[in-house]
């Protein structure tokens, strides 16, 4: 719970500059820590926010199994395709209230989306992730696994 609160606090302070870093780079100015459109810090933050959202959304986060977790680029403004943000896409299989697994389901999360559509399991996941291009070839599955996986992955 403290981790979740801290993550959202950090989000409010850093999430907005995530795109401005991208814009700076598009305009030619170098972004901090990375030669790409988004800095490593922005990617890490999006992963942490996704983890926090999943902790709140899943009945039993500790039991969750993940597959094919990737960070993708997504348009965040229909009127301006150049305005892009990060989204985390993957598959999750977690215990339900009855204690059984339901099978892997697609999920997405992006802190740049309006609050009501920020994350989802199935639903819009195919729309957000279906044709989206990955930011890089990294598999972020280990970063979402419960326990100390986040610390050990770094």
């Amino acid at each position, binding site marked *: 719970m403290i981790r979740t609160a801290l993550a959202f606090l950090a989000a409010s302070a850093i999430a907005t500059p995530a795109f401005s870093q991208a814009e700076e*780079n*598009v305009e030619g100015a170098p972004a901090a820590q990375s030669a*790409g*459109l988004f800095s490593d810090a922005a990617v890490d933050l999006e992963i942490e926010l996704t983890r926090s959202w999943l902790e709140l959304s899943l009945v039993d986060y500790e039991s969750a199994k993940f597959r094919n977790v990737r960070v993708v*680029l997504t*348009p965040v403004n229909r009127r301006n*395709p*150049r305005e892009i943000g990060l989204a985390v896409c993957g598959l999750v299989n977690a215990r339900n209230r009855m204690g059984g697994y339901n099978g892997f389901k697609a999920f997405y999360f992006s802190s740049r989306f309006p609050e009501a559509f920020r994350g989802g399991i199935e639903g819009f996941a195919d729309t957000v992730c279906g044709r989206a*291009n990955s930011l*890089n070839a990294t598999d972020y599955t280990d970063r979402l696994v419960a326990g100390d996986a986040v610390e050990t992955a770094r």
Partner: protein
Amino acid sequence: MIRSCAIILVGGLMAAACSSVPSYRPAPLQTASGKLGFSVSGIASFTRDEAKVTEEVRAMLEKSCGGEVELQSIVFADATSRGGVPHLAYTAQAECKS
């Protein structure tokens, strides 16, 4: 009057259905050089003219980029129907120059 409207409506729908202009939205990507780019894939209907489709795809990508693009790749695959109606599947990727 009603007949004229109906003819115009049906004509418009037929013209829209036969249009070869691809209607898919480009997806943003990060190019190998770390710049913003877009990719798009879809099917151009009722045509097998690769040059024409290339120009249409380029225009679509330029609209997304808001300026000139460097077309990095465009791959075509014949998607002609069993009845012989010509269609062309494509996948393209471009880097925004500005």
